[in-house]
């Protein structure tokens, strides 16, 4: 008789099954998310140790009145998740805090296990009295502020702000032009003109420097030119005689030099002649 009292359910009640299904669903979601979080953590750990493989500035030259700095960096992503929406902005300021220019990269994506090559290009106008002019002639520290935004593993946005100073070697550090005392040579007035500077940049300077010697009244007394092939770390110190007009005195005037590289000319600041 007792057996007749046992309420044997072949199948649990609907409300029980619903609650059980919800719990199982929650557990499955939890396990999946824990596995996902664990893999993201491992992947991020891998990526953090080998993200930037190389960082080089490959080209620096002066053209069109600009100081063009070109370069690239390689971003490797050894993790399993993509680095998406990569955007980079870099602001440069000279050692007096004057803004020089801004570089932007992206948005771009580096897939998991992939490598991205990003090109950087910034053109700094070096016209007289411009903020970048001092970069040609004065070694200094450049203030670099960089901001990067990425989304890692689809769900984790990451913002990085970097601030640091980089030493800058001027390509014409200590540029100095002097006009010596004119002398009479074979009936012609000749003045020795000397150009001096040190190439503290990382590239070889190749091209020509032409110059004009003006009197105090603005009359052109003479002109000449130098060719240059100056490796990094070298000093340029050359002198040549310049024929001067017999009716023109350079004293109190100025020397105007122009740099020509690959067909483009940049005018240097005038050098006063004592």
């Amino acid at each position, binding site marked *: 008789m007792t057996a007749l*009292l046992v*309420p044997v359910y072949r199948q649990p*009640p609907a409300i029980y099954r619903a*609650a059980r299904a919800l719990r199982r*669903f*929650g557990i499955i979601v939890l396990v999946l998310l824990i596995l996902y979080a664990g893999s993201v953590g491992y992947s991020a750990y891998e990526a953090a140790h080998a993200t930037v493989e190389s960082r080089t500035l490959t080209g620096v030259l002066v053209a069109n009145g600009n100081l063009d700095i070109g370069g690239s960096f390689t971003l490797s992503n050894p993790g399993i998740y993509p680095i998406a929406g990569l955007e980079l902005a870099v602001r440069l300021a000279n050692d007096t805090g004057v803004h020089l220019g801004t570089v932007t990269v992206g948005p771009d994506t580096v897939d998991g296990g992939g490598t991205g090559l990003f090109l950087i290009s910034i053109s700094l106008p070096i016209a007289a009295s411009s903020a970048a002019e001092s970069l040609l002639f004065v070694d200094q520290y450049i203030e670099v502020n960089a901001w990067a935004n990425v989304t890692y593993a689809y769900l*984790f946005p*990451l*913002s990085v702000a970097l601030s640091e100073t980089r030493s800058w070697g001027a390509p014409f550090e200590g540029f100095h032009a002097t006009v010596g005392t004119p002398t009479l040579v074979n009936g012609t007035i000749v003045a020795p003109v000397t150009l001096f500077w040190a190439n503290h940049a990382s590239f070889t300077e190749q091209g020509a420097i032409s110059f004009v010697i003006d009197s105090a009244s603005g009359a052109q007394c003479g002109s000449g030119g130098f060719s240059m092939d100056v490796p990094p770390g070298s000093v340029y110190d050359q002198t040549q005689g310049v024929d001067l007009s017999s009716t023109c005195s350079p004293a109190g005037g100025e020397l105007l030099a122009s740099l020509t590289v690959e067909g483009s000319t940049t005018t240097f600041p005038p050098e006063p002649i004592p």
Partner: protein
Amino acid sequence: MSAPAPAPTAPTPEALGYRIPSLAYRILVAALRLILSFVVFVALPVAVLAYVHSRGVAIPISIAAVTTWGVLLLVLTAARYILKPTVAYGPLSIAVSGVFFAYLYYLVLLSPYRFVIPGGSASVAAGYSEFLEILMIVPAVEILAGILTTVEDAVHPGERLPFDYPA
């Protein structure tokens, strides 16, 4: 005179097809589970936070907060397990999931995690709110399950016991 009919007796759980572990056994199992949960919810996070803090990096949440939330979750989880055969199981399930949900929401409010890399040259802001918002599905679902269990226990007390504790 016929013999009086025997007084009706309530069927035993075994007769009903289930067997509830003793209170002492449930307390013992809950304590063992507590150890594992303590490692996951308290010891491990606190160890990570302490390590990060020792490296001079600001931590996103205080160690005291992690400990408080973790211990609260552990106590409620242990109580739920011990009281699973009773009608308190449903409300305790809701309470555990509610606290877990509130814990996750508290963490969402702390996102993004901002810190400065030692040396001061770089600062990082790491967002994790989207992940936590997805994770909040888990306690939300558990709350629904707790509500269903509470209703079931109110309407049909003991109906679930043969399935929770099959003999």
